[in-house]
């Protein structure tokens, strides 16, 4: 090997090692933030967690109290959001995968728009629901909060339903149709059964996304220091309370904000880990 080739060879090796080192460093950089954020949230949240969190309502400025009304409000609105968003999403996803074969342009347009809706800023959806369901009615309400959350669940479920149904082998459709079964029955009783794990994953992912959403609730459900008499009244939610309390100057409010952040984070982490495990276990059933 001449001196020149030795030099070039070494330079290529050095570049390669350098790039690999940077790749490892970038990954360490990403993981570093994950651990820092989780550590701070879990540590502060653990210390702030008391039984009163689950039994008392949110306190006045500087006072002691809990998050009971916010937890119930979050639960109600998230549940309603999923109940409204998921069926619509499953229906739309089914149309895209199963019933749009004669309108490919229309199908691709809706897929495109859904993909955009999927990453659209949630605060913009909140503004939309404000003009739709708050301004027209004249007051903030838990219902409008639930609608805003449903708009976030919808595109997630549309996409996962569409993708999962497309994974179901055609043999299944043909076998069912050849028995003379109408298409809606084939869809509901055969395809949905095969695609159930994937669709459920989409619904759970949607739930995980909305349980920490703050921006769309700020001016739809607003907030409420006390128990909301019904979903027709302004309703408090954990993320909005966390936002309000964290930005305040009171230590007791900060502690409650950390407790709320802790509950939301743990819930979402458990949900996403469980979803991932469930999907891994069922992935092959859906594809087989």
């Amino acid at each position, binding site marked *: 090997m001449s001196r020149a080739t030795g030099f070039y060879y070494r330079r290529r090796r050095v*570049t390669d090692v350098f*790039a*690999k080192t*940077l*790749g*490892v*460093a*970038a*990954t360490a*950089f*990403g*993981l570093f*933030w*994950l651990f*820092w*954020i989780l550590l701070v*949230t879990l540590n*502060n949240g653990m210390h702030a967690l008391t039984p009163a969190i689950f039994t008392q309502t949110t306190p006045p400025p500087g006072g002691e109290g809990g998050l009971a009304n916010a937890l119930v409000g979050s639960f109600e609105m998230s549940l309603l959001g999923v109940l409204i968003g998921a069926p*619509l*999403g499953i*229906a*739309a996803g*089914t*149309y895209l995968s199963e*019933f749009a074969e004669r309108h490919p342009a229309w199908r691709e347009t*809706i897929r*495109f728009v859904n*993909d*955009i*809706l999927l*990453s*659209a*800023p*949630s*605060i*913009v959806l909140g*503004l*939309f629901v404000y*003009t*739709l369901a708050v*301004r027209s009615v004249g007051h903030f309400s838990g219902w409008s909060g639930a609608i805003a959350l449903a708009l976030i669940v*919808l595109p997630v479920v*549309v996409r996962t339903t569409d993708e999962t149904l497309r994974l179901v082998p055609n043999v299944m459709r043909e076998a069912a149709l050849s028995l003379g079964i*109408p*298409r809606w029955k084939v*869809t509901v009783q055969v395809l949905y059964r095969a695609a159930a794990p994937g669709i459920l994953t989409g619904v759970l992912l949607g739930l995980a996304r909305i349980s*920490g*959403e*703050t*921006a769309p609730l*700020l*001016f739809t459900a*607003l907030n409420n220091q006390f128990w909301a008499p019904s979903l027709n009244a302004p309703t408090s939610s954990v993320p909005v309370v966390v936002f309000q309390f*964290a930005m305040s100057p009171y230590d007791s409010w*900060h502690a409650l904000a*950390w407790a709320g952040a802790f509950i*939301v*984070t743990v819930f*979402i*982490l458990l949900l996403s880990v469980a979803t991932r495990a469930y999907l891994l276990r069922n992935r092959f059933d859906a594809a087989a």
Partner: protein
Amino acid sequence: MSALPSAAIGLTIDDAHIKARSVVETRQDAFFRALLFAAATLVLLILGAAAASMLWGGRLAFETFGWKFIVNDEWDAVGHQFGAFVPIYGTLVSSAIAMVIAIPVSFGIALFLTEIAPTWLRGPVGAAIELLAGIPSIIYGMWGLFSFVPFMAAYVLPWVDLHLGAVPWIGPLFRGPPLGIGMLTAGIVLGIMVIPFISSVMRDVFRTVPASLKESAYALGSTTWEVVWNVVLPYTRSAVVGGIFLGLGRALGETMAVTFVLGNAHQLSESLLMPGNSIAATIANEFTEADSDIYLSALIALGFLLFVVTFIVLAIARLMLYNLARKEGH
């Protein structure tokens, strides 16, 4: 012939019955199809209605201020003068900082997850990075305000002010008091938030490169870096750009985390160390305080601008990503 005798199984098959049943089933099918069609159309309607409702809600501001709404930097709630330049500037600058951080880091992570890491490590590390995307933005905001801002103020910003502030040309960007909150901090937090989105797209598209292409390059004696730079990246270029735009779309519209660490100040300053504002943070902070029609309208008009910008960015992202899918033959 209305009834067909079937001696073998001792049954008579009623032709009229079959006809009636098939009519019913056809009707059910049509109904089901119409139902699903309506749901799919709803997706389209929501996006259209969102744009229309914000344009309508913001018309008072657009009519009153005209195109000056975008270039005017005065935001005076008492004097009813609203110009969106400060929040627009803040949104663009904080997103630009986020991209400067997130693009190289995401590329490094994708490189690690597809080429460098041993196979058994790829799954867990990839899942951990994706967990970053699962953390709600309000948590980023709280962590940012209570942990990251003090850290920046105590350790990073004094150094930035002293060293980067002395560099010619870009110096003024980095000169200022170490407040902690401000454009630079917000940009870094945004960068961390979009890393999982960009890196997971990059990882997924890197995986689509045919093994035969990579193996050919390796067989010619290429190093891993040369394969990635000369084979993988050119093959996936449009999708990589698509992933970057997807992250940019996220960064532009991110609300809560930015609201916590940006400082919420309607002032234009040269330094990245000073507090600023963004479109989303302005809306989140001031919407419930808007006490006049023109104030509310100006905020909704801001929302409309954000919607238009993110729509364009996300549309570019999707088109870029579809390009690769088409190449793949899907």
